[in-house]
């Protein structure tokens, strides 16, 4: 009993101790902001911080934000989390939100945020000049900042790349028992099928997806990395993955017998998706938010995207990473990535109907 009361009392001390940093950290974004409203005209030397809600992982964004702060003196506060809950939080907070920037992965999530009215349009000559038209929202609610290409990978032991051509061709019966796919619950596949729906229409897309399912060599995988390892181990011969996962596996083992094939080069190009950002509808620091997003579209941070995660720059510049360069130039699908978001729900239902788990 006295042990228990000891624990209780020590916890009460902790509780008292923690309520101090708590109130600090909670009020910080809002408070510094409201201070800033008064303080900025008087002393522009202390700019207001930018608050970012991000579904991109911390180790991929922190180096970028640190660099931004070093160059501009503007502090960046961020909260990372899963896309769905982050959007729900932004929506629930409404006008009271601390967030200035929503930075998320995948056009589908950006489209959903725009669709819920959570983003404000950005008028920026810098972004228009740096970011190609198909990687930004038609209404300028968000801009893509890095490009992720989803393409075909194959076993160098068992597949002649001359046999490969398009995503659609992987539905051909000649790949029966040789294809590996990641789960349809991953947004990357929802986006791929979403753009196919835009281009081919639902009936034809459904036939293709059914063909894929019939060709599966193994139950669908829960990650691209596992899929690549399965090709290397001989469980299947071809698959569809994001290129940076292959990059990660090759960095671990350069002799991995798996290679990349740029899909649909004769037709509409490789399916690409973006990580991108927009300014929140109720941003307290929209100027700082715009400055951050514009800065992320410039040469130095664009190169960092590639270095940090083997992705491609959103600007027409070439990746500085040798491994990424070694994959060669490719034609990317110039259909606006917004279509993937718009068709995402239809894609999910189509994959359910086709039995793609």
């Amino acid at each position, binding site marked *: 009993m006295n042990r228990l009361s000891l624990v209780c009392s020590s916890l009460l001390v902790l509780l008292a101790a923690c309520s101090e940093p708590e109130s600090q950290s*909670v009020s910080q974004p809002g408070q510094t902001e409201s201070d800033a409203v008064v303080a900025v005209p008087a002393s522009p030397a202390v700019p207001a911080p930018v608050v970012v809600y991000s579904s991109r992982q911390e180790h991929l964004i922190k180096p970028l934000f640190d660099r931004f702060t070093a160059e501009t003196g503007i502090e960046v506060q961020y909260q990372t989390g899963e896309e769905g809950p982050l959007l729900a939080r932004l929506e629930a907070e409404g006008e009271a939100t601390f967030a200035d920037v929503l930075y998320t992965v995948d056009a589908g999530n950006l489209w959903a945020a725009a669709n819920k009215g959570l983003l404000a349009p950005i008028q920026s000559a810098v972004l228009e000049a740096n970011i190609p038209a198909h990687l930004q929202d038609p209404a300028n609610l968000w801009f893509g900042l890095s490009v992720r290409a989803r393409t075909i990978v194959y076993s160098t032991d068992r597949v002649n790349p001359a046999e490969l051509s398009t995503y659609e061709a992987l539905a051909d019966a000649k790949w029966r028992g040789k294809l590996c796919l990641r789960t349809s619950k991953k947004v990357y596949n929802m986006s791929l099928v979403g753009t196919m729906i835009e281009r081919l229409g639902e009936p034809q897309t459904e036939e293709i997806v059914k063909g894929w399912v019939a060709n599966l060599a193994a139950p669908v995988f829960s990650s691209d990395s596992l899929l690549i390892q399965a090709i290397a*181990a001989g469980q299947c011969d071809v698959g569809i993955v994001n290129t940076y996962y292959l990059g990660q596996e090759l960095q671990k083992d350069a002799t991995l017998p798996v290679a990349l094939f740029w899909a649909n080069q004769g037709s509409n190009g490789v399916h690409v998706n973006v990580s991108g950002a927009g300014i929140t509808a109720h941003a307290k620091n929209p100027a700082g938010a715009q400055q951050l997003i514009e800065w992320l579209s410039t040469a130095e941070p664009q190169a960092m995207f590639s270095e940090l995660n083997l992705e491609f720059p959103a600007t027409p510049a070439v990746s500085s990473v040798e491994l990424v360069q070694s994959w060669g130039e490719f034609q990317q699908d110039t259909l606006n990535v917004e279509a993937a978001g718009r068709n995402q*729900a239809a894609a999910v239902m189509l994959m359910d109907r086709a039995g793609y788990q």
Partner: protein
Amino acid sequence: MPMSPAPSLRRQTVVWQGLGVVLAAIVALPILSILAQWGTLGFGERVIWQHLLDTKLDRLAFNTLILLAGVSVMVSVLGISLAWLVSMCQFPGRRFFEWALMLPLAIPGYVMAFVYLALFNYAGPVQTALRNWTGSSAWFPEIQNAGGVILVLSLVLYPYVYMLARTAFLSQGRSMMDAARILGLDSRAAFFKVALPIARPAIAGGLALALMETLADFGAVSVFNFDTFTTAIYTAWYGLFNLTVAAQLASLLLLFVVVALTLEHYSRKQARFHAGGRNQDLRRYQLKGAARWWAVGLCCLILGIAFVVPVAQLLVWVVQTGLVELDTRYLEFLGHTLLLASLAALVTSVLALILGVIKRLPRQGIYSEGKGWTQHSVRLATLGYALPGSVLAVGIMLVFTWLDRGLDRILDVQLLLVGSVFALVLAYVTRFLAVAHAPVEAGLESIRPSMYEAARSLGASPSRVLLQLTIPMLRPGLITAFILVFVDVMKEMPATLIMRPFGWDTLAVRIYSMTAEGQWERAALPALTLLLAGLIPVLMLVKSSAKQAQGSRGQSR
């Protein structure tokens, strides 16, 4: 003989019961806000429901039932048999196994899942070695199916049954078994007819926890890509962008729980299970010959696959990826994790105690569990455990932003609550009240009403009964409640992710940011740190239960 209470006491009772309803209602608010989503059933929602019914709802319900059935059988067999061995039998290493067998509790389900998938998939080390030796691993069982998920979930969930059953067996001691044997039952019959039924409330409590966590689990099933009801919730939310349908689906999970709890309630009927007060006799059965080595072997096997193997794999990954991850921020992650866990565990256990006691306040002088408002609101408040963390977090967020708007109107302050430690702790309380409730209830259930009546008739005031009778007798249950909630909060990811204050990263948040893109190896370091932190409360329990055992041995002398 029950005394007729003084009017002032009756008034006091009403006040306390009112307080109980209010406390339970606060905890239940987020759950109610999820249920309220049934108010919206527009065109979009109907299209999705029709689609779900047409394509997969039957398969998902079936998968969920299979999972529940498999996990119940496996956690019961493992939990009860291991608890019986370590509490009632004597064999080499018993004292070590007694606490070591709780350790798998500190391993988050998704970590166990990705370790086992990485080890045993086609490209993993086990099957690769088999192919190198024998040329084929085609006969190797597929693990990405119901069997694999059941195994993984059971390995992390059996400690709930184990811990509660162990406490129950310890408190009934040997005298009941001896009495049964003297009355002519053989040892097997004595176990099934006496020891097991007396431990039943505790076992049912532990099993209910394991099943609720199974229902809410998203991590392990998504690693194995096994479609359950929960995966449909996330597809509706993340894939179809419809949070309303997601919440509606989630509220159906509560239906599973209500049905299960009702079944247990009716099958127990009016039976009450009270142990004979404090355990009088802790002499254990000496296992001899082959039996003792069977016992050692079983404990080693379970400890091996549920703890040693995953820890070894995590260690290998930490070595492979190097310690580049390790920096001073880990101290911060650890600090936040421990602080949040202890705060939430304290608040939740105290609340469970208060609600449990209020539920049992005397009516017309008779101590028994009634069926009033308090009972119903407590039952509602403990349902949060069956909801997936992020869905419940959204419910909490809705409640808090609503409160924030009100505060803003009155006090002109913005967003005090959302993103505060207070809100996060309330989220934990809502999610884990059931976890503290089960051991506390099991403990209260085993206290004979006659003891209260005796204390009262000897003139003890209600507060004195609470402090000198109830709490001391409940001690093992309270400590179990504290530890279970502590460990659960440490592992909790979705609610922490979305509700943590700025900069309050915990170890679980760190694991998430590493695994979000499938880089499991890099999550090994925070996962191992989490495991080490999980040892702290387990060791606390070991020390306190050792002391308790000493105490009661001293008493029996």
